[in-house]
């Protein structure tokens, strides 16, 4: 079918081809992985000292430990460069996608590990300000907060 008329009309009304905005907003592209890196860096910096009380947090603790081998390795990982951390997490997340281990998280189809990290990032941002500050910044930037 042709949308030419509607297109022309919209372009006129939109202001000589000014570009439109879709209804669900514009979250930052690639934010999930950036945020995951921030969580790891924040967690490593304080030695995983947050209160591990929820299933999500336990899941993420296990995840981070499995990614880096041990708690101490995680703390070491926190010293890695942003790019190195990003690469290691990306590999793990990609594996989850390939295993079809996906969940829907706030509308996003994500690897389970990726979603768990993000969820934790949100919790950290709300409950442990000193720990989660960097993560929370990412949360706000990425519009993950509810």
């Amino acid at each position, binding site marked *: *079918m*042709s*949308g030419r008329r*509607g*297109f022309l*009309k*919209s*372009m006129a*009304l*939109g*202001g000589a081809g*000014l*570009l*439109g*905005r*879709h*209804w*669900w907003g*514009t*979250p930052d*592209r*690639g934010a*999930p*992985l950036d945020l995951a890196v921030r969580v790891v860096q924040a967690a490593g910096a304080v030695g995983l000292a947050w209160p591990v009380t929820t299933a999500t947090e336990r899941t993420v603790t296990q995840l981070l430990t499995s990614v880096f081998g041990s708690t101490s390795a995680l703390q070491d990982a926190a010293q890695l460069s942003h790019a190195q951390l990003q690469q290691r997490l*990306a590999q793990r*997340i*990609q594996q*989850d*996608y*390939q295993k*079809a281990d*996906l969940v*829907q998280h706030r*509308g*996003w*189809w*994500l*690897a389970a590990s990726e979603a768990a990290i993000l969820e934790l990032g949100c919790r950290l941002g709300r409950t442990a300000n000193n720990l989660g500050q960097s993560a929370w910044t990412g949360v706000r930037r990425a519009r993950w907060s509810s």
Partner: protein
Amino acid sequence: MFIDGRTLAAGTQLSADVCIIGMGPAGITLARALQSTAPRWNVLCLESGGLELDPNTQALAKGDVTGLPYYPLESTRLRYFGGSSGHWGGYCRQFEPIDFEARDWVPHSGWPIRHRELASYYPQAQQLCELSDCDYDPASWHLDNTPCLPLWGNEVRTRLIQFSRPTRFGQCYRADIAQASDIRVYLNSNVLSIDVPSEGGRVTGLTVGTLSGGRFKVSARIYVLAAGGIENARLLLASNRVMSAGVGNERDLVGRFFAEHMQLDSAAVFPLNGATSFDLYALESRHRPRTSICAGGSQIGVMGYLALSEQAQREAKTLNYSANLHATYWSDFFLHTRQPEQEERSMLQAAADAVATVWNNLKQAGQLALQRLPGREGETFYKIITSQEQAPNPASRVALATAKDAFGMPLAALHWQLCELDRHSLTVSLHKLARAFGGGNLARLLQPSDFKDGWPSYMVGSWHHCGTTRMSDSAASGVVDAHCQVHGVKNLYVAGSSVFPTNGHGNPTLTIVALALRLAEHLRKVLQ
């Protein structure tokens, strides 16, 4: 040759070997094909409109919409010579083998013919639609700097759409028809009833009227309905003077199983880095000519789309699915003007919407301008435009409305419906796309709704009217047989997408033309 039906004397009786009702892509293809080889049969064509659009004739296509929101019916079809090819977008792709199969997870699925029985007609159909003779596999094209995405796994694959100019059948083939002495096209001639004897079994003639008040009769050895997916059903149902349920409708199947291709902004894709090109799949680049590597190396606009593999469909028990990508610079206003209910909105609401849209566009323009700054290139994201097969659904139907047209014929009433299988397929398909993107570390996918609370108001159809005279082996499950003959009416045939038992995910025009070629071959045998 063209003849204006309004010039005929009242009571004129016309006759021919074949009478074709409707001169869209199906009717024109059929008429020309019947004349392509000897013997050349005498073909009489009835076209509701003239050579140009006329609002009074177009008003005959009005109707009621009682199901899911839909466009005003008269906007979806063009009643003039060339039919709806006059506003066709030119999208062409072939149906796939799985589309013809009876799938146990898709109730009422299965064509009485296989893909291979249609495959031999596609090459000629592609010529008629002015396409390359090449196939739809990306490997058959020089895609140069718009490569296929390296999607992970084998559940999602890249296929191509070829773009017709688009071929306006009424312009492209007008001279052929005008010069063909054995093809008479009566313009401004509307079929008012398909006449059958009380015992049924065959058509004895057609009653035809003009908006100027003229009436005449047509008799032929064979009649072919080629008036579109809604009008074909309306004509059969409204021809109820002798048979109260209408012609060919003893089983109450005429008009049922109406199927569309939902167009739904179902999700968005966010590339993970700017290095991966999504251009091949973007609607914006669809008319960029690419060269086929087939003989002749023709240059045609092609566009990639994402499709589920047959294996993935079988394993997940889904309908056939495809998705295009659309960079997010359509305005909201464009989106909303495509909703039928917009017609009902007050001027005040419309003005408020327009102001909000302009404001949103200004904001978005600012954001996008920032994104174009050095170092922030490639931050575009894409809407996923779903085009999905519709599950055959007897409750989705065309019936007769109580309101009548200028001839006193009941208008069509469209009750478009979707079911749980449609929703399930959409969500599963998006999950698989997310996996293919994520596994390849290409992108993330955002799906704002699972549509469990109903279909959103911004879902629209594609003006693809299918299924209302579906093809089947048995009269118990369809309206026409494998040769498109109406079950139980030996000299009445149907051409067009109304005969599709299932509608695949693909655009229908190419298959309509291929089926018309196949029907012409069959009719030549019948006539001899």
